[in-house]
């Protein structure tokens, strides 16, 4: 799988990425390919994609590749540029600079073809208020040659939505469910879901994610889902991209990311080994008195065995979840496990 890191073509990697396994920068994967060639291999390719609103830089030279068939969780704080990026990909917003290719098509010049093959679910409730689910079905059926009435009705049934109720009479959660039912029934090749579960209770959220997963299983679609609900992204995504300040600052397979973020906490009885930072598999050492937190990679068991030879008070492996990684990446601290 292709993986990108902070800066891409424009800058260096931050310290936390340097030894993480399975991560490469955008320029190393280019391999002399033309953007079009790369675009044909990936679902989404962004090169220097930039959007500026007056003095505000919403997206800052974004270099990003989303492999076909992947489920990518796009996470980041408010104002990180997630929604603007999605809007540029479907042609709602024009880039100030840079280019993007979606499903092999130029997002600036071929957005109509992209929209025909992409299911985009905006963050805001934006369905026509006068429409019932049946009206929406009649409207969408004409727009998408791949539209499936059966899939739409099946999803409505799963959510327990009536096809006769107008959108204006629906709760926020019902509107989100109808929007998702409409999006998956298009049977798109790419799903762009912008905060799809916001406003849903846990039960509906679970059904919602199941529909997404079923859709992926059935059609093999590529999914990009922005979310503040990190456990959701953790549940459905096989890749995670952290966005901040209009750029992807960290991205990898979820497993590789967790693997790379594993820590060993060790409390030595006496002095720690003087060459600890140079040990094989030790990426970084944070020391606080006799407590040492080791960022590690590779064979953790071998490392623990080597540490135990020093008779430490405590030696344990700490598994990071996405929330820890999110806070680490966003630089906001957060709870340590």
């Amino acid at each position: 799988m292709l993986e990108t890191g902070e800066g891409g073509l424009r800058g260096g990697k931050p310290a936390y990425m340097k030894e993480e396994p399975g991560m490469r920068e955008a320029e190393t994967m280019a391999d002399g390919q033309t953007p079009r060639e790369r675009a044909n291999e990936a679902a989404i390719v962004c090169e220097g994609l930039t959007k500026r609103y007056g003095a505000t830089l919403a997206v800052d030279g974004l270099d990003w590749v989303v492999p076909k068939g992947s489920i990518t969780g796009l996470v980041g704080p408010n104002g990180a540029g997630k929604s603007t990026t999605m809007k540029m990909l479907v042609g709602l917003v024009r880039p100030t600079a840079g280019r993007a290719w979606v499903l092999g098509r130029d997002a600036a010049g071929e957005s109509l073809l992209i929209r025909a093959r992409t299911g985009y679910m905006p963050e805001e409730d934006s369905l026509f208020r006068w429409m019932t689910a049946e009206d929406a079905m009649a409207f969408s059926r004409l727009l998408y040659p791949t539209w499936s009435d059966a899939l739409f009705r099946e999803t409505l049934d799963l959510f327990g939505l009536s096809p006769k109720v107008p959108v204006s009479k629906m709760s926020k959660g019902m509107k989100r469910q109808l929007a998702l039912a409409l999006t998956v029934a298009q049977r798109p090749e790419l799903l762009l879901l912008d905060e799809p579960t916001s406003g849903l209770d846990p039960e509906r959220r679970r059904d919602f994610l199941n529909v997404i997963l079923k859709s992926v299983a059935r059609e093999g679609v590529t999914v990009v889902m922005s979310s503040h609900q990190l456990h959701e992204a953790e549940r459905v995504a096989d890749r995670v991209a952290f966005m901040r300040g209009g750029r992807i600052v960290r991205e990898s397979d979820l497993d590789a990311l967790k693997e790379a973020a594993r820590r060993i906490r060790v409390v030595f009885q006496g002095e720690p080994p003087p060459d600890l930072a140079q040990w094989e598999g030790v990426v970084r050492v944070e020391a606080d008195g006799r407590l040492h937190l080791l960022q590690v990679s590779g064979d953790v068991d071998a490392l623990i065995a080597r540490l135990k030879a020093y008779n430490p008070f405590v030696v344990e492996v700490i598994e990071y979840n996405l929330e820890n990684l999110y806070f680490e990446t966003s630089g906001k601290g957060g709870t340590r496990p």
Partner: protein
Amino acid sequence: MTAAVRALLFKEIREGRWKFAIAALVLMAVGVSVPLAYEMFGGVLGELLEDARIPQFLKELLPPDMLQMDTYLWSNWHAKNLYQTVVVVAIIFGSSAVAGEFSRGSAQYLFSRPVTRRSVVLAKTGIDLLWIALAALLGTLALDITGRLAHGYAVPWTFYAGLVPILAGGAFVYGLALVVSTRLDDSVKAGVLAAVVAALFSIPSWVPAWRSFSVYVQMTGRALYRDGAFPWLPVLVMVALAAGLVAAAAERLEKRDIA
């Protein structure tokens, strides 16, 4: 016609049907009332002409044929109620066409569908103008039928032909409102601004030498009533201007961000 265009037409027809129903009902009610008010109008006018307190020069300003049914109907329908209502309806429809999608929050959904923005504008324009034309026709039919029933008077063909300059002018006003609608996200603000802009176009009608340049004067189809000559040139000019405005609106929408 592509499936996407059919989808847009379906949406516009469903979405605009209540606006059309209200416009049609208003025009039909006015259409019915105009022939019914003829005798009352004649009575009032007769009293005014006989009132010695009214100066003679004022009485002479009144057209001598004012009490004739054809003059009465034309002046109260084409030159007053119909054209004014069509202008108001055109402003309401045009100003809410695009701005309404933003103020209702449906713009992102609509413009992320596989349809071009130009086709959205053209579908909206086509359906809205069709609604306006149908409402004007229904109002005129209501007037005609009431005139026949109440007074045994059948309007001449020119009465229906007079709808054409009114609708051409209505299309021009709609185009103005549509351009405003692509620049503002609030349909109420767009409506107010469109009304102000439309009002500015009435300035030529205040100056006798410029009256023929006024869209509102041309809408009344005076030449058609007086001479029976169809006003081809004003109609073509108004239609061309309307087409230019709709194209400008589509161009403007094409370039803007749907944020």
